């Protein structure tokens, strides 16, 4: 069953651009990325789009569909009516390179700023066996495909370009939480999270969780627990007192 869909796709680069109108065939079972590929093949050979696996696992085809941050390959055309005009734009939190392709190097820079796993210095490879209950919290965070939709939708940087230096975004605060919850990690992640990665700027409005294609509970399981751990270290006098008299770690 084929129908002619109305699409508006943002075309342009960092100097300017606009939404361009297209009419394009849609077949049963297709996703938005299929339609973008058909546009490339039939009407607009120079349309730039970043994609790779087409299976929701590489995190390449992040964009905004009708204003909502989504993966192009995981958005079924059957979720729209045939009369609807579907608008596709690049992610609006990052500088655009061309058409639907953005420069996400902000995220790679923030990733490098997170110190890696720091086990005790005297621990030899193979000396430690982890139990399932100790790894399952961080296993959830390891599902991240780094599509950066959470970074894109987070209003702290999306709506405030000037915050990009001070705030690492939900994806990398989740990475810090993952490391902090690791039984063997010895680094001071709490102070890092608050002082160097801007955890205090997060006001837990949960948009990162809403857009995550892997359904990771970023806010409830990473950001809020990390905020509570920061409170332990920085704002809770009872925990501070407990640590001084040797009753709390």
């Amino acid at each position: 069953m084929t129908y002619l869909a109305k699409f508006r796709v943002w075309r342009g680069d960092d100097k300017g651009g606009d939404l361009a109108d297209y009419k394009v065939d849609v077949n049963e079972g297709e996703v938005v990325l299929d339609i973008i590929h058909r546009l490339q093949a039939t009407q607009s050979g120079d349309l730039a789009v970043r994609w790779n696996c087409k299976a929701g696992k590489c995190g390449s085809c992040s964009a905004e569909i009708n204003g909502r941050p989504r993966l192009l390959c995981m958005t079924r055309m059957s979720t729209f009516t045939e009369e609807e005009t579907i608008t596709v734009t690049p992610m609006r939190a990052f500088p655009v390179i061309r058409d639907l392709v953005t420069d996400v190097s902000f995220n790679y820079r923030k990733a490098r700023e997170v110190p890696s796993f720091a086990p005790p210095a005297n621990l030899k490879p193979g000396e430690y066996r982890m139990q399932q209950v100790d790894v399952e919290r961080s296993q959830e965070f390891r599902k991240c495909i780094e599509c950066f939709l959470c970074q894109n939708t987070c209003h702290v940087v999306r709506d405030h370009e000037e915050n990009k230096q001070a705030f690492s975004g939900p994806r990398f605060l989740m990475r810090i939480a993952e490391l902090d919850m690791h039984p063997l990690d010895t680094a001071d992640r709490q102070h890092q999270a608050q002082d160097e990665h801007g955890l205090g700027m997060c006001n837990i409005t949960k948009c990162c969780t809403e857009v995550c294609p892997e359904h990771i509970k970023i806010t409830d399981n990473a950001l809020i627990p990390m905020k509570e751990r920061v409170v332990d270290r920085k704002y809770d006098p009872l925990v501070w007192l407990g640590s001084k008299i040797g009753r709390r770690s």
Partner: protein
Amino acid sequence: MSRIEADRPVKPVKGQTGVRSPGRANIAARTLRTDKWWFQSALTFTLLSLWVLYATARTVSQRAYFVEKYHYLSPFSSPCVTASCNPAARDFGTWFPHFPPFLPYALIVLPFLLGFRLTCYYYRKAYYRAFWSSPPACAVAEPHTTYSGETRFPLIVQNAHRYFFYFAMLISLINTYDLIRAFRGGNGGFGIGLGTIIMLINVVLLWAYTLSCHSCRHAIGGRLKHFSAHPVRYKAWTFVTKLNTRHMQLAWSTLASLTITDAYIALVSGGVFSDLRIIH
């Protein structure tokens, strides 16, 4: 501006920051969302405002807060420890002289209850979105030129949520005591009425909301790095985690149950109808 320069700190200029920053895709609309993105915030704004108005009106009215015959005490006036309270409602004694008009009888706990809800991680999301448009909805540009989150006063006080949680636990104990007292018949012995059932539902929901708190989840076991070394706390954490996934629903349910409990007691106390008795 080149791509590499894009995330250098820049002084925000109204109309040229956020999604309209130089270098980003040039789209004038604050959002291209086609769904009713404003509905959730509008609903939250309306319901929370109505609840605050109701709770304020009822707490300052100093009226119809107690049904002496069955010992139904409204949660909005508990504990009643001022000389202005009905003597039968003063189970915890008389700590204060007569209150002037408009001063809530439960003044001693209301700041803590208010603080617990205001600093609650769920309510923060709700009112940041609905009352402060920060953001109004996901992927909808907020109207503010600058943003510092919870890094400065007053919002840095949100970090005190765990202390409000400790007080909320104590207040839940008081509510539980009020419930036990409400199992009273008209002759002074044991009895159950519709008011008792409503108070029971309210107290169960209040406990569930309080225990599902993110600070409780952290204190009970979330702060640990090594679950396998603390199996009992891990079990407790698992239980609280299950409750925690319902924190939003419990937050709203308790607002409803508090309102219904108070309204029922007010109506019975005011003589609008009599309590439906199940036992005595």
